[in-house]
């Protein structure tokens, strides 16, 4: 068993997932690859299995965050030291994996792959750009680390961060800005790494239309509740986590 787990949440990504797995296997042949098939109605699971990935199949659609959580719990149970998560739709270039793992080697607990760090302006709609800017500003203020792409699903984390996240209470729909802030508050160190992202090779983005509006609402609510909310959902499992001013 490898000590690194590549975690790929996927929902209806048949026709695309095989390229993602091949890309990952090509650059990291020794890492274990797990695909969380989130109740797909197509052949996502079979396709992933055929390419040599272990498939964890949800009996029905649980959501993106829930898929990540399944992966974290799996990683924790199996004692993986590091987890890299990337989306199953082919947006995330596997070449970023080495950079993210490199950031963990340099002492970070969580490395976030950013599209924007290299200075490229995002080729998305105005609304998304505005939301992205806003959450980026909030997360940067709160964590004290410059985070330009808080909604990025391309991340690497250590077992310590996984232990922090792998329990019920993890946001099961759209985890991102709030999770980063929570991890930072738990005393874990964040860093951001520039990665390449491609346009989606098909399928449907999670952040679209009304869902994007709900996302923005939910994130603002969660963020404003963070300081007063009970710690229990993200309780630190280590008794003496260094408190961080923030």
């Amino acid at each position, binding site marked *: 068993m490898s000590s690194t787990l590549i975690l790929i949440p996927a929902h209806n990504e048949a026709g695309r997932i095989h390229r993602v797995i091949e890309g990952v296997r090509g650059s990291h042949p020794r890492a274990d690859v797990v695909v*969380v098939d989130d109740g797909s109605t197509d052949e996502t699971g079979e396709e992933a299995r055929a390419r040599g990935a272990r498939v964890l199949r949800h009996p029905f659609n649980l959501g993106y965050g829930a898929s990540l*959580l399944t992966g974290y719990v799996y990683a924790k149970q199996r004692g993986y030291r590091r987890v890299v998560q990337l989306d199953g739709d082919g947006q995330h270039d596997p070449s970023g994996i080495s950079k993210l793992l490199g950031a963990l080697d340099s002492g970070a607990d969580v490395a976030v792959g950013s599209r924007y760090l290299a200075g490229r302006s995002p080729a998305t709609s105005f609304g998304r750009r505005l939301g992205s800017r806003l959450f980026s500003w909030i997360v940067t203020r709160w964590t004290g680390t410059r985070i330009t792409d808080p909604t990025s699903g391309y991340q690497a984390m250590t077992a310590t961060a996984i232990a922090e996240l792998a329990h019920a209470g993890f946001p099961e729909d759209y985890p991102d800005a709030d999770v980063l802030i929570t991890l930072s508050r738990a005393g874990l160190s964040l860093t951001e790494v520039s990665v390449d992202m491609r346009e989606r090779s098909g399928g449907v983005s999670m952040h679209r239309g009304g869902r994007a509006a709900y996302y923005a609402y939910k994130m603002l609510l969660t963020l404003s509740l963070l300081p007063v909310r009970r710690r229990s959902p993200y309780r630190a499992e280590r008794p003496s986590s260094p408190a961080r001013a923030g």
Partner: protein
Amino acid sequence: MLSLVFAQGLAMDPQLDSHQKIVAVTLAVATLLVIVELVRRRKLREEFSAIWIGTALILLTMALEPRLLSFFAGLIGAKAPTSALFFGALVFSMLLTLFVTLRLSRITLRSKSLARQTTLTQSELEELRTEVAELRREVTRLQRGGDSTQDGAA
């Protein structure tokens, strides 16, 4: 102007007329019967029935003793006992809805958690099956190679 409102208030009958009374009592008794029957058929859990039985009983009491309703109307500053009744019903519905959404949140969380556990157990089961199959093959191979006298018998 003020005296007009006052006069209206005096003129208003604090008692429900018999028509209103019949409707209210019928409604309360029907609710009670339906709830009891649903519990009997195990369609409704006992814990949820309490809130409905309670409501029906309050409705029944108020219908049979309209002074209670008038008292309640005065308490919340309602001008007519009937609007007090509506107000009470609205508050009850809101509370019930809140209660139901709370339960729904919990059930959602639990079903997701259950689904996750099933997923992980399933994966572990598949892994164990593969391992057992490999071990079986290995045992068979060792038996064949290790003991030539049993080889013919097997």
